[in-house]
């Protein structure tokens, strides 16, 4: 039995780094401090069957193959493609993403991440209006007003409230929760809303209108309408007052804003509201990034290519325009002729029309487990789990970098994403 401390949980963007994992031989006994989902992820090592050998589908049946054969075949598919899509990346290390970018550049393909169906609209809004933000420790130490808008951390980021926002004691908030106020804005009374001091139920799809009303008030205007987005005028004014009069406010938002009608414009308006609030007090905003390293994917993409996702290398350098170079658009236009999926399950998470094209073209999947995507893949190369069986760099939702730890060996014969990708790249170069 060995206890490994300061382990970083590879599940969500909260990236808790205080997990204590107890390892007994090839089993994980426990993952102390982890939330329900994080705990599940660590313990999954014990019971989800792990594929060891690559699978190749041929003539209607799939068969086991050697790693060398799978890599050679994957390289061949990618090398022969005219418009390949390399997708996934949010659940692997930055080091793996870097190799992915190099492959995309080498073959003149497209590379996109799960950002595209998560906080892609956020990134686009940031590109229009910016992002006044802070690190999570600033919130813990200073915040007296915390707002979750279209986000339900009790389900999606279970320890977010206890580590960073509401419950912890901070330098200037010694009494923790008692020194802070929590407001939740959502279309449903979520489990997070249930513990809030105030819950504002917004009519579905009308967040933009509510944000516009708030901005007008914050900017000194008078609201003429009696009700906006199902929220009475007095309540909107009260909310605006709370925001302007706090000492340090933070607005966290989630897919309730990025996915509902208006998408990036909802975020544009929310960020602009926070910008406007800075004329009155200190206020910040932060997207609740989902997958544990979706932020890291964006960071590496940005420093290497100049763009955070949806990059097209067809002309030998990076070009970017979500709506044109993003995964769902090229899939639905049926432009893609080969797909490499790394550490993701687009078949489970893309709309039917996009998946239909994934089913049509040769797809190579690198992942630790069988998934719906591996079901439709021509080649499946099992890999080790980064953050549990492999080290690697990840970025927390507030862009704080952390180096994830290895707590246990991967099953024998299973390689890391980095190694598999490097070997594919090498093979592609040999073919040119």
């Amino acid at each position, binding site marked *: 039995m060995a206890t490994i401390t300061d382990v970083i949980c590879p599940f969500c963007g909260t990236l808790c780094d205080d997990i204590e994992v107890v390892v007994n031989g090839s089993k994980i006994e426990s993952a102390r401090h982890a939330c329900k989902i994080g705990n599940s992820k660590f313990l999954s090592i014990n019971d989800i069957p792990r594929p060891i050998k690559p699978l190749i589908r041929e003539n209607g049946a799939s068969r086991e193959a050697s790693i060398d054969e799978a890599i050679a075949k994957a390289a061949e598919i990618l090398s022969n493609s005219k418009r390949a899509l390399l997708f996934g990346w949010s659940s692997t290390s930055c080091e793996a993403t870097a190799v992915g970018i190099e492959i995309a550049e080498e073959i003149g393909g497209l590379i996109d991440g799960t950002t595209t169906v998560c906080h892609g609209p956020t990134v686009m809004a940031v*590109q229009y209006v910016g992002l006044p933000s802070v690190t999570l420790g600033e919130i813990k130490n200073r915040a007296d007003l915390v707002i979750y808008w279209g986000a339900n951390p009790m389900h999606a980021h279970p320890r977010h409230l206890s580590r960073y926002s509401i419950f912890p004691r901070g330098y200037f908030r010694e009494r923790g929760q008692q020194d802070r106020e929590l407001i939740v804005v959502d279309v449903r009374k979520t489990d997070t809303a249930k513990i809030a001091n105030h819950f504002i139920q917004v009519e579905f799809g009308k967040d933009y209108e509510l944000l516009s009303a708030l901005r007008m008030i914050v900017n000194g205007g008078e609201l003429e309408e009696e009700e906006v987005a199902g929220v009475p005028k007095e309540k909107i004014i009260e909310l605006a007052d709370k925001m302007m009069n706090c000492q340090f406010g933070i607005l966290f938002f989630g897919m309730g804003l990025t996915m509902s009608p208006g998408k990036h414009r909802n975020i544009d308006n929310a960020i602009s509201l926070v910008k406007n609030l800075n004329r009155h007090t200190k206020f910040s905003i932060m997207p609740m990034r989902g997958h544990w390293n979706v932020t890291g994917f964006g960071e590496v993409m940005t420093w290497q290519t100049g763009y955070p996702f949806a990059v097209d290398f067809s002309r030998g350098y990076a070009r970017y325009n979500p709506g044109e170079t993003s995964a769902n658009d090229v899939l639905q236009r049926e432009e893609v002729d080969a797909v490499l999926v790394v550490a993701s399950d687009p078949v489970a998470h893309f709309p039917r029309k996009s998946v239909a094209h994934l089913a049509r073209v040769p797809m190579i999947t690198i992942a630790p487990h069988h998934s719906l995507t591996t079901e439709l893949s021509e080649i499946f190369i099992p890999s080790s789990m980064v953050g549990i069986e492999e080290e690697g760099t990840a970025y927390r939702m507030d862009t704080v970098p952390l180096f994830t730890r290895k707590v246990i060996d991967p099953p024998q014969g299973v390689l890391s994403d980095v190694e598999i990708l490097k070997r594919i790249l090498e093979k592609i170069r040999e073919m040119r």
Partner: protein
Amino acid sequence: MSELVLKNGIVYDPINNVNGEKMDILVKDGKIVEKLNGNAKTIDCSGKIVMPGGIEIHSHMAGGKVNGGRLFQPEDHVRFAMPKTKVTRSGTGFSTPTTFLTGYLYSKMGYTTGMTAAMPPLMARHTHEELKDIPMIDKGAYCLTDGNWFIMKYLKNGEIEKCAAYVSWLLKATKGYVVKITNPCGTEAWGWGKNCRSLDDPAPYFDITPRELVKGLVEVNEILKLPHSVHLHANNCGRLGNFVTTLETFKVPNGTKPAAKRQIMHATHIQFHSYGGDTWHNFESKADEIAKAVNSNKNIVIDTGTVTLDHTTTMTADGPLEYYLQSLTHLKWMNRNVEMETSPGITPFIYSRKMPTASIQWAIGLELSLLIKDPWQVLMTTDHPNAGPFIRYPRIIAWLMSRKYREETASKVHKVIYDRSTIDGIDREYSFYDIAIVTRAGEAKALGLSDRKGHLGVGADADIAVYDINPSEIDPSRDYKEIEKKFSSAAYTIKDGEILVKNGEIVQTRYGRTLWVNSKVDGELEKEVMKDIEYNFKRYYSVNLANYPVREEVLTRSTEVTRSASV
């Protein structure tokens, strides 16, 4: 390993007092040597200038804030793109180039070393991850200490030795090379949306003034005997009438002795700190006052932060400044307060020739270079990308070497410069020797690197730039366009004895060293301070202490510079 002879070049090597002499430079195993055994590859440098490789002393080239600037400006990245070649990776970005591109662009100009100007400790790993992807040059990072709670508390309590031990630990933990101070105390005030507007305006709650913080860190820097002095971005950056604060700041280190033969304070991008006037209508240059102060104080070195009249990006750890700028331009704005440490911000900026302010700012940068008499005290930067992107260095060189070029540019900017700056009356033109000082020799000396960099003496790293300029044929004063072109595109850039650039094209890529200071203090003192660090991490940071330090493995060719403190 390879041997190389650079034959018959016209050599400018100010550290060794070589001023345009025709001589051979011999290279063996990446070093400059006295003699070779034979069989060396020869490069004919006749009719060409040979200088040490260029050294960048202040550039925001890597790290979280730089990447924020890239991320939120796709419009900057469509402006400039370089496709991949057989030897290089692709890259994009005009004012915020991607990492690979950054290395290539510096190398094409004959630069071989570059320092990234601001690294928040908590984000250190990010900075190093990016540095790892910057090829061609040696590099290092400046560790931000301006709003640091440990430092503020120690200094407030007069615990200077503990403060020194903490800073020593911080440099090691972050693999930093320099103690960087940006808007002292103001970055903590920005945690509440406030700022410190004078040297005696204290940080809220911590109740320590910028004056006390700077003074304390100067002392700490010298106790630790660090290679560079403190590197200071003073209070009131970019504000009207700020020259008063700047002059005051220059006096703060008085009485402290430098621990090495170098300046006691490096004051950075002083163009942004030389402003007079109290409204934007009477905004004027105070470069002359600043120059006077520097001319009479041998202990100060500045870099210019010269405005290049471009559409660029401003980014600094000075969060309140970025907020102020976006409130003037109404453009997009990014802010990133880092817990317990500092508060960077970013916003795009257009230095338009038509604008009186931008025109005066352009004049100030050049005035500083020309009015400060000793070039060793006034190094050339654009505070990349704040006053302009570093790819404009050749243009600045041309401005410095040619009064005619300055006049030509002056005629195209707002005429207000004739009244509110002295640029029109300055005849001085830089020599190639001066240029070699303000772009490499001066940097090496200021950074404490002159044992191995910034010169071509025996034992130095073989980091060499060759430019296709024949000083007996080209008159920089008249042929300024030619000067600009030739400095943009080195005939050869040689790094550690390897030819990386030939005729302005990259012929091979290499990764340089990452320099950091391994600062040593008394073991007992360090243990005591570690207790404080552990206590505060548990309570106030959002990461565990064990996950904070940067591991050496992430550094390319990790190169430590060891310094033992006097405590």
